[in-house]
C-alpha cells in the first residue's frame, strides 16, 4: 500500500534520512523504532506528505506523493489519520468541534449524523460525555484519546501514531497501547506507530522496523528484535548506552 524508496532528507549539515526503503502492507501493524532525534517523526511526516524530501519516492497505492502540491496532497491525506505526539488539538474548538472537524467541512452530513458519529468515536476511545470540554481542560492521556477520535472518525485506511505514549505514565501508556490495538482490530486499519517505548512496541507491533543512521537498519517481529544478538539492536531494545557514543 505504501512504499518508501531511497528517501533522503537533510536539514542544514545533518543528513536525517539517508536512503530509507520501507514497505507498509495493507492491514499490517508496523512499529518504527529508533533513537530520539534519529528521524522517525521526519520519516512519518514524509509518508503523509507534510514534508517534501530532497530525493526519493513515497508511493501511496502506486502514486508518488513526494512532489505533489498541497492541494493534490489533500485528496491523498483523506486516506490517512494521524495522532500527533502533542495530540495537536485545535485549542479554540471544543472536543466535539475538534472531532467533527472533517465531517463539518464536508457539508454533506446532517448535524444529527455528526453528533452521533462524534459520540461513537468518543465511545471507541473510552471518553464519552466530554463533547463540550475545551482541550485545555483535558489531561495528556485524554488529549491523545480525543486526538485519536478525531483521526478515526472519517474512517481512514491508515492511522499513524507519532510517539503516542511519550510523556504519559506507565498505566496511561498501557491503556493507550490497548486502545491502538483495539482501533486496529475493530476498524481493520493499517497501523503505523513511531515510538522508542519498548513496551509499546511489543504491545502494538506485529512487525518492527528500526531506523538507525538515517536508514532502516533491520526489521522483524517484536520477539525477533528483543532477542537480536546484533549489538546496535540489542543495546537499543535493552536501553544500554554506548560510552563511546554521544547519547543526547
Amino acid at each position, binding site marked *: 500500500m505504501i512504499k518508501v524508496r531511497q528517501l533522503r532528507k537533510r536539514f542544514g549539515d545533518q543528513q536525517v534520512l539517508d536512503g530509507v526503503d520501507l514497505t507498509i502492507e495493507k492491514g499490517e501493524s508496523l512499529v518504527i523504532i529508533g533513537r530520539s532525534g534519529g528521524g522517525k517523526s521526519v520519516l512519518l511526516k514524509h509518508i503523509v506528505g507534510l514534508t517534501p524530501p530532497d530525493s526519493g519516492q513515497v508511493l501511496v497505492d502506486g502514486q508518488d506523493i513526494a512532489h505533489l502540491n498541497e492541494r493534490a496532497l489533500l485528496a491523498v491525506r483523506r486516506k490517512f489519520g494521524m495522532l500527533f505526539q502533542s495530540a*495537536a488539538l485545535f485549542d479554540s474548538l471544543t472536543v466535539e468541534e475538534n472531532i467533527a472537524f*472533517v465531517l463539518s467541512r464536508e457539508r454533506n452530513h446532517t448535524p444529527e449524523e455528526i453528533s452521533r458519529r462524534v459520540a461513537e468515536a468518543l465511545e471507541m476511545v473510552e471518553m464519552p460525555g466530554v463533547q463540550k470540554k475545551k482541550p485545555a481542560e483535558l489531561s495528556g492521556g485524554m488529549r491523545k484519546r480525543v486526538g485519536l477520535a478525531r483521526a478515526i472518525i472519517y474512517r481512514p485506511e491508515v492511522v499513524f501514531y507519532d510517539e503516542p505514549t511519550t510523556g504519559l505514565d506507565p498505566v496511561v501508556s498501557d491503556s493507550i497501547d490497548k486502545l491502538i490495538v483495539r482501533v486496529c482490530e475493530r476498524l481493520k486499519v493499517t497501523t503505523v506507530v513511531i515510538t522508542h517505548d519498548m513496551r509499546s512496541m511489543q504491545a502494538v507491533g506485529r512487525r518492527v522496523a528500526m531506523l538507525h543512521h538515517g536508514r532502516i537498519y533491520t526489521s522483524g517481529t517484536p520477539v525477533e528484535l528483543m532477542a537480536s544478538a546484533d549489538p546496535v539492536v540489542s543495546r537499543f531494545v535493552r536501553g544500554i548506552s554506548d560510552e563511546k557514543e554521544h547519547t543526547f
Partner: protein
Amino acid sequence: MTEVPTNVIQRVLSGLGRFSLMVAEVLRSLTTQRLSGRDLVDQLHFIGVKSQMVVLVTGAFTGMVLCAQTYFQFHKVKMDTATLAVVSVSMCGELGPVLTALMVAGRVGASMAAQLGTMRVTEQIDALRTLATHPIDYLVVPRVVATMIAVPLLTAESIAVGILAAYLVGVHLLQIDPGYSLVNMQRFTDHRDVLMGFIKSFIFGGIIATTGCYKGIHCGQGAEGVGHATTEAVVYASIAILISNFFLTLLLTRLLALI
C-alpha cells in the same frame, strides 16, 4: 564580508517569494473554494466589533488635535472658517485610513501572527493538513476577507467620529462660526476624497491580514519564534502601510481626477 549581505538578500528574496506564493494561493482559494460563512463572521466580529474602542478613540482625538492645530495657524490669517474643511479633507484622504490601519495592524495583525504562529509550533497547522484541509482556505482566507471588509468600515467610522469631534472642539471650544465652517467643509471635501480613503483602507486591510498571516504561518520554533513573528507582523505591516500610502496618494489622485 560578502557572505552576510548575500545571505540577507537571499533571505529577503525567498521571503518575498513565499509571501507572493501565499497571496497567489489566497487568490486561488477565493476563486475555487467556498468560504465558510461562520469563519468569516467570527473574524468580522473579532476584527471589526472588537476594534471599535481603539478606532473611535484614535479618530476622535486625531480630529480634535488636527482641528486645534489648524485653527491656531489659520486664526493668524483670519481663515478660521476653513479649519473644518482642512480637517475633513485630511481625515478622509490621509489620516483616517492611515491611522485606523496602523491601529488595526497593532491589534489585529499582531493577534493573527500570534494565533497562527502558536498553531504552527504546536503542530496544529500540520494537524489541519492531515485532516485534508488547506491552511490557506481555513486560516488565511477568512482573515484576509474579513479584514478587507472591516478596515474600510472602521475607517469610515473613524473619519465620521474625527470630523464630529473636530466640529465640537472648533465650534464650542474655539468659537468658530458653525455655518460658514460647514459650508466650507462641504465645498472643499468632495466624493473623491471619500473614495480615496475607502480604496486605501481596503488595500491596507489586505496588507495587515496577509502580513499577519504570513508571519504566523512561517514563524520560527518555540516561544521566541512566535514573539518574533508577532513583532515583525506589526512592524512590516506598519511600514508597508506608510510606504504604500504615499504611492497610493499619487496614483489615486491622478486616477480619481478622471472621474
